[in-house]
């Protein structure tokens, strides 16, 4: 007997002592029709954009607002200069980036490499509840850019910021997105494994900056 059959038979035999199989299937259908639990008040703030920014900063990200995507090259160049980073950025094939005039910035398109001083991704959504960016992997925004950049820049439309996780999942479904990975990112990477002292910049980015458009 295969491991699967052995495990499933044992499980079904035990669970059958309670409700029958048909009752269990009905219970599952009922749950799937109305999933989720209570939505806390932090996930119901009226000013979702304001709450997102405040909480992202609390999670050690930095945030700035720009009026439109056209302002991104200039704002990014300034951020890079202020951080003493080279005037260069690595990003994916996202149509938003392809249509921009990058001016003096050296841009390259592709996946993350072993040394990436600065990378740029477009987040699909933001969640105000915890100041979290939600990215969808793919050619437009390769997942490795999120983790290999020393400094990770994320651009996010203010209209894509949702109050709580439930709203965000509903929006993701409505957009028909089924990427290989959905990455929730809340601040830059960190570790307290040496001496129990929290330090920013473990294996992922040392810094995270979010540009909110609009």
């Amino acid at each position, binding site marked *: 007997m*295969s*491991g*699967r059959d*052995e*495990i*499933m038979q*044992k*499980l079904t035999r*035990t*669970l059958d002592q*309670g*409700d029958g*199989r048909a009752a*269990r*299937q009905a*219970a*599952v259908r009922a*749950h799937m029709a109305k*999933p*989720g*639990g*209570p939505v*806390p*008040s*932090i996930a119901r703030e009226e000013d979702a954009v304001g709450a997102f920014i405040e909480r992202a900063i609390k999670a050690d990200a930095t945030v700035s607002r720009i009026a439109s995507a056209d302002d991104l090259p200039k704002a990014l160049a300034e951020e890079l200069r202020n951080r003493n980073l080279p005037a260069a950025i690595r990003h*994916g094939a996202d149509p938003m980036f392809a249509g921009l005039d990058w001016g003096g910035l050296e841009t390259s398109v*592709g*996946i993350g490499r*072993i040394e990436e001083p600065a990378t740029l991704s477009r987040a699909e959504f933001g969640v105000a509840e*915890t100041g*979290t960016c939600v990215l969808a*992997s*793919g*050619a437009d925004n390769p*997942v*490795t850019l*999120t*983790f290999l950049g020393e400094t990770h820049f994320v651009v996010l439309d203010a209209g894509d910021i949702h109050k709580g*996780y*439930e709203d965000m*999942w509903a929006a993701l479904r409505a957009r028909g997105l089924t990427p*290989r*990975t*959905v*990455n*929730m990112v*809340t601040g830059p*990477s*960190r*570790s*307290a*494994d*040496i*001496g*129990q002292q929290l*330090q920013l*910049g*473990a*294996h*992922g980015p040392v810094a995270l900056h979010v540009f909110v458009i609009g």
Partner: protein
Amino acid sequence: MTVQSTTPQFKQNTKDALKNANLQTALRDTRNGFVGKRAAAREKMGVDEFEGLRDAARDLKNHTLANLDVYLEMYEEQVRASGGHVHWAKTAEDAQRIVLDICRKADAKTVNKGKTMISEECGINDFLAENGIKPVETDLGEYIIQLRGEHPSHIIAPAVHVTVPEVRDEFRKAHTHLDADRNLDGLDTLLKEARGVLREKYFEAEVGITGANMLIAETGQSIIVTNEGNGDLSQSLPRVHIVMASLEKIVPTLEDSATILRVLARSATGQDMSVYTTFSSGPRRATDPDGPEEYHVVLLDNGRTDMIGTEFQDMLRCIRCGACINHCPVYQTVGGHAYGWVYPGPMGSVLTPSLIGVEEGGQLPNASTFCGRCESVCPMRIPLPKMMRHWREREFEKNLTPSAMRYGLKAWAFVAKRPWLYRVKTRAAIMALGLLGRRKGRFAALPLASGWTGGRDMPAPEGDTFMAQWKAGKRP
């Protein structure tokens, strides 16, 4: 077989732990960190809302466990639909064999690992090494203890027992390709060095192994929750990704995962949300430029289906946040290694006898004062003290308890079941002790109680028993 335990030597382990000065320093330094941070996160969210989420999380997991076969089938179907493979492992040996097969087919020489307790449970590292494949732990804490040849002493802070000077020594010994005279004084230089060394390893490995905090039945996704980003690098850079998860990690939907996420980080580290929460499904898509080409899930049972339908089923709600461990006075005193197997603290005291047998793990449920802090902070409201009591009963029934304790318990039960006798005896004992200790007001030593008086004085009783005083009309 599962990783070897030293649990039968629990008593000796605790004695060694108490004498280990480095360990005691490390434990003292962390004692209040986790506790304070969880309390602050709960306050910040609002106590009522947080408690409501704990109820919801408990109910959600109860529902999932009661219908687990249906959800597992749904999950498996979704993983297949996304191009992934599900491998069912009845035992730890099965899991080892499955992982080795995948690694061999991938012609793997090096395997990168995110933090996974299931891999620890199955002893994957030693098994791969015996078979000529090099496992590299990439979580910073796991990396440190791998260098030291140890196992984790905490499920979310595996190197919590290691002091900074010990980390420094370990790095000097291991990173011999670096300048021997380099400055390693600051914590930041240590972190940078580990980051640099491990960054190269991510690109070398053919296979990446991670755990899973949850598995979503609706979508077939596996979720990892981390702060460092090592798990994501381990699963997105190698050609093959293996997820090792036990089968109770299932939650029905994405919305349900939000309920668990809302209590997980707050209970663990006091964060509102961990830095990286990643939902993964299947191998890279036709148009994806990165990500693994193969995606495998090893679903481990290893004794868990035997817990369903028993008084230990509630334990399967555990989301491995570590709150019970952080709040346990016994853990805070002896650390994690004394427990002798993979899972320490209260959750380990319940889980270990379930997974490796009461004969081997039966001592752990005795290592509790039943103070109840573990249950009071458990986000899944697992009745840990009650289950430890069940294990004590089973240990007693199986005649595994030492004979002196058995006779002592029987004598005590005889008296306790006869209240008049109990009252006469306690009153006599209290009077005698009060008389003997009248001069000093305390005892530095008492017969049969050296274990207690070894660390502190016993105050001499003053006056009569509570029952006698109450009867005489005294009220507080």
